[in-house]
C-alpha cells in the first residue's frame, strides 16, 4: 500500500486498538492519553506533514528481503526474552514488590487523592514528570526553530459548509470545557495535565479546520505559544523552587501549605496546570508550524 493517506488513517485505527488493549489491562489513564494523542492529534499532524509532500510513496529499489529477515530475527529474540517474564498480574513479580505497594499504601495517608496514577505521576515521581514536560517543551521549541510559525495574513478563507459552521461553534466550546474538566478532575478519575492539554489543543485545531487559519491566529497569535509553553515549565519548576526556598527538598509539596495533605493537593494542582499548559502550547505550536509552512510553499 503506497497511498500514505490511507496509511495515516489506518494508523489512527491502530492507535485506537492499542488504547482498547490498554483499557483491557485496566490502565485507564494511559488509554485516555493514547486515544487522545494517537487518534486525534497524531492524525492531524501527520496529515499536515503529508500536505507538504507527495501522497504516494516512491517505489524503492532496495531489497525488502534482508530487512524482513532482520526484523523477524529481532522479533523472535524479543519474544524469546519475554518468555522469562512473570505472568501479567502475578503478585510475586518484581514490579509489584518494591515500590508499588508503598505507593498504594501511602497515597491515601500522605496525599489523599483517589487516583493513584496522578499521585505517583505528580507527587512521588514529580521529578520525572518535570523531565517529561521539559522534553515536550524542547520539542516545541525545536519545531519552531526549524519551521517557523507562519503569519496570519498568509492564509486564504476556507470554503464553507454551513452546517459545519453552525455545529462547530458549540462543539469547540464543549471541547474546551471538557478539557478543563479533565485537567482538574485528574485527581479523582482518569485525566490529568497531558490529556487535558491535548484535548484543549484539539479544540483550537477544530476551530482552525473549519473557520480557517487566519481566524485562529487572530484568536491566539503564534508568538504567544512559546511564551505559554515556557510559562508552563516555569510553573512546574517554580513550584519545586518554592518548596526549595522554604527549606525543604526540591518538589516537596508538603512545604506549600499548612498541613502536608493540602500542600500535596496544591502542589499537584499547580504542577498539572503547568503540564497542561506546556502540552497545549506545544501541540498547537507544531500545528501552526506545519500549516504555516504549507501557506508559504503553495503561494
Amino acid at each position, binding site marked *: 500500500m503506497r497511498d500514505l493517506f490511507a496509511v495515516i488513517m489506518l494508523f489512527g485505527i491502530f492507535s485506537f486498538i492499542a488504547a482498547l488493549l490498554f483499557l483491557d489491562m485496566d490502565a485507564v489513564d494511559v488509554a485516555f492519553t493514547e*486515544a487522545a494523542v494517537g*487518534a486525534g492529534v497524531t492524525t492531524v499532524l501527520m496529515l499536515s506533514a503529508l500536505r507538504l509532500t507527495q501522497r504516494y510513496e516512491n517505489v524503492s529499489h532496495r531489497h525488502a528481503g534482508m530487512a524482513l529477515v532482520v526484523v523477524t530475527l529481532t522479533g523472535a529474540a524479543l519474544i524469546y526474552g519475554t518468555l522469562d517474564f512473570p505472568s501479567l498480574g502475578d503478585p510475586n513479580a518484581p514490579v509489584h514488590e518494591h515500590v508499588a505497594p508503598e505507593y498504594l499504601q501511602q497515597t491515601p495517608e500522605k496525599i489523599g487523592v483517589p487516583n493513584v496514577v496522578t499521585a505517583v505521576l505528580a507527587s512521588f515521581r514529580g521529578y520525572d514528570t518535570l523531565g517529561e514536560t521539559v522534553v515536550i517543551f524542547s520539542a516545541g521549541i525545536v519545531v519552531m526553530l526549524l519551521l517557523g510559525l507562519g503569519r496570519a495574513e498568509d492564509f486564504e478563507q476556507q470554503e464553507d459548509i454551513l452546517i459545519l459552521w453552525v455545529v462547530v461553534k458549540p462543539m469547540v466550546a464543549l471541547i474546551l470545557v471538557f478539557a478543563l474538566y479533565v485537567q482538574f478532575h485528574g485527581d479523582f478519575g482518569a485525566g490529568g495535565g497531558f490529556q487535558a492539554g491535548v484535548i484543549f489543543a484539539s479544540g483550537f485545531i477544530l476551530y482552525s*479546520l473549519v473557520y480557517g487559519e487566519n481566524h485562529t491566529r487572530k484568536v491566539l497569535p503564534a508568538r504567544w505559544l512559546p511564551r505559554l509553553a515556557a510559562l508552563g515549565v516555569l510553573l512546574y519548576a517554580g513550584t519545586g523552587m518554592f518548596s526549595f526556598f522554604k527549606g525543604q527538598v526540591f518538589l516537596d509539596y508538603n512545604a506549600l501549605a499548612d498541613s502536608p495533605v493540602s500542600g500535596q493537593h496544591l502542589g499537584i494542582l499547580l504542577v498539572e496546570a503547568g503540564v497542561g499548559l506546556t502540552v497545549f502550547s506545544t501541540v498547537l505550536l507544531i500545528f501552526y508550524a506545519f500549516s504555516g509552512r504549507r501557506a508559504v510553499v503553495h503561494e
Partner: protein
Amino acid sequence: MIVAAILALLVTMALVLTRAFIGPTVYDRILAVNAFGTKSVLLITVGGHAMGWYSYVDIALMYALINFVGTLAVMRFFETHDPRHDEL
C-alpha cells in the same frame, strides 16, 4: 444481553475495518474510519459498563470529540490537496 450487544459491535467493527482496507475510493476509507471511531465509542460505553471500567464515560466522551476532529481533518486535507504534487 449486553454480551450480545458487545459481540454485535465487535463484528460490525470487523466489517467496517474490511471496508477500510478494500474501499476502492478514498471516501470509502474516510467513511469507514469514521464509522470505526463511532463504533469504538459505543464499544467503550457498553463494554465499560459491562466490565466495570473506571470512568469509562469520560473516555467515550473524549473519543467522540476526537473522532469528530480527526475525520474533519482528513476531509479538509483531501479537499485542499493539490493533485499535481502527487507522483504515482
